């Protein structure tokens, strides 16, 4: 792990008119880490992702990726720097096959210009891209679905297509927005293995996720947001026991219960669940 973080969120704030989506968010992610960003619904997690990937301009603060400020950069420019992302809901190109989805995702890996295409000069490059697409589908475990329309896949499989698309951009860091929502327990386990294999290839991961057992299992570090503010940060064990986190998820009285020990099991279970 290097001393300079791969991603720095520097006092980022987002306001939509009078509504404060993110008040003041400040944290770092280091290369090689798996970090999870958690918090109740409406805490500002997806908003934070949208700021990091250029889909939203922050009202204050900035994001740095590998030392470069992302201020004023468009989404397609940010992904070229090596910061990939997936989406919470619409993670596929629905009318194309799974294979063609990945081929679209490999856009930056192709070098063919429009003129090359018109003159038929990019055959070798296309063959190389198809090879790469097959490798990526193999990696996420969708080889058997290559010929099917992405929009017709089960929800969990669509998430995998989304991950394959993001991996196709050859990111140094990947932001996954609720990757296991809509997956059953066994699919989630398969996905946890996929996340680890992504890390093994040297890709840093930042997740937004509601599935607490999965978050606890996979994360090196957890960042907790509530009402657009960072309320806790640390390894899974510390987060599980953090009174502020328990209060955010269960309300004040539960946190009090947790303090005196009587509700410990109930409260930790809820955070686990």
């Amino acid at each position, binding site marked *: 792990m290097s001393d300079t973080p791969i991603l720095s969120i520097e006092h980022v704030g987002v306001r939509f008119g009078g509504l404060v989506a993110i008040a003041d968010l400040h944290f770092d992610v280091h290369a090689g880490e798996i970090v999870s960003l958690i918090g109740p619904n409406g805490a500002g997690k997806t908003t934070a992702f949208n700021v990091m*990937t250029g*889909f939203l301009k922050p009202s204050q603060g900035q994001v740095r990726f590998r030392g470069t400020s992302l201020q004023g950069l*468009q*989404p*397609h420019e940010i*992904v*070229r720097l090596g910061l*990939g*992302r*997936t*989406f919470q809901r*619409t*993670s*596929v*190109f*629905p*009318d*194309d096959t799974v294979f*063609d989805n990945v*081929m*679209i*995702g*490999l*856009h*930056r890996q*192709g070098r*063919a210009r*429009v003129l090359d*295409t*018109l003159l*038929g000069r*990019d055959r070798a490059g*296309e063959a190389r*891209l198809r090879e790469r697409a097959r490798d990526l589908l193999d990696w996420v475990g969708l080889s058997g679905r290559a010929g099917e329309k992405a929009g017709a896949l089960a929800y969990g499989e669509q998430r995998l297509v*989304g991950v394959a*698309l*993001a991996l*196709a*951009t050859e990111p140094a860091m990947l932001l996954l927005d609720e990757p296991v929502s809509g997956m059953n327990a066994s699919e989630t386990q398969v996905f946890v293995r996929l996340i680890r294999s992504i890390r093994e290839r040297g890709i840093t991961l930042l997740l937004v996720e509601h599935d607490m057992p999965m978050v606890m299992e996979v994360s090196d570090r957890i960042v907790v947001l509530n009402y657009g503010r960072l309320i806790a940060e640390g390894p899974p064990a510390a987060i599980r026991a953090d009174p502020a986190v328990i209060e955010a998820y269960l309300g004040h009285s539960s946190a009090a219960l947790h303090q005196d020990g009587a509700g410990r099991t109930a409260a930790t279970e809820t955070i686990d669940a």
Partner: protein
Amino acid sequence: MIRHIPALALLAALAALPFALGQNPYLLNALITTGIVTIAAMSLNLLLGFTGQLSLGHIAFFGIGAYVSALTSLGFDVELVGGVRVVHEPWPPVVGFLLAVLATAACGYLVGRLSFRVRGAYFVIVTISFAEVVRLVALNWVELTQGPLALTGIPPFSLGLPGLGTTTLRTKLQNYYLVLVVGTLCYALIARLVASRFGRAMRGLKENESLALSVGINATRTLTVAAVISAAMAGAAGSLYAHYLRIIDPDVFLFSTTVTMVIMVVGGGKGTLLGPIVGGLIFGLLPVALRPVMVPEAQWMVFGLVLIAIQFVMPKGIVPGVARLVTRRRASAATAPRIPMEVRP
């Protein structure tokens, strides 16, 4: 290669068609103008069908192509603001064709750059306004365009290589094959584009723009390039039109022609390679069939009814509808023999 069979069969049929019709000049004329508008519809489909952007001023590119090509081959003598006099001696129509393609490509770039920042409804409005402005220029810059008096005596195309002599395309049959060749080239070009990295970028933007941006596709650049190619093709069609009819007036910018092109694309199946051709042939030749029985104004109502009927039976247009029927029949043919065996007790 197999996926090109329907297109190749259609090409063979179109190549043989004049002989099947006994070279009837009235029908040939209808086929030529239909072919020219179909090329324009193919260019519109590149934007509407493959990027999802509706250009309701597409006729502007067609008309600019027609005027540039006509003026290049006729020559002109105009005085610009400040007393600058521009005199142009006539050049061959082939040069006019190339300049028409280049000029409309440049217009496509401008319109694309201006409007793709906003997209959707704004793009529709910008393209309509552009077409109207260009029409007014053609109508009022009388010194250059003759205004409503029309540009007349436009020379027909002449083809040839230095040393081998040239042929001037005077007959309808020659012009028919010229349109067929240009149309085939446009088809091949679009087919190649759509199957390429660039085509995937267009589809990605159409299906899920945020996701396309997140994999590094530059929306403005992709859509602008699509607009440039689309405009250049419409300009080529306009040039063919000018040298075939040999007379053009500001009516080439009529809004209703854009509407016809949209009907061709939507009826035939937008976002498919063959859709605009099938739609173009149907709606281009429908007036020929209807002319003996009704006035042009009434034909428009039939157009509407036919389009509604097509959309009712095949919501995505004829080509996708037929493709679906074929795959379904194949699928049921493959499973049919098994059913009695499963039913048997």
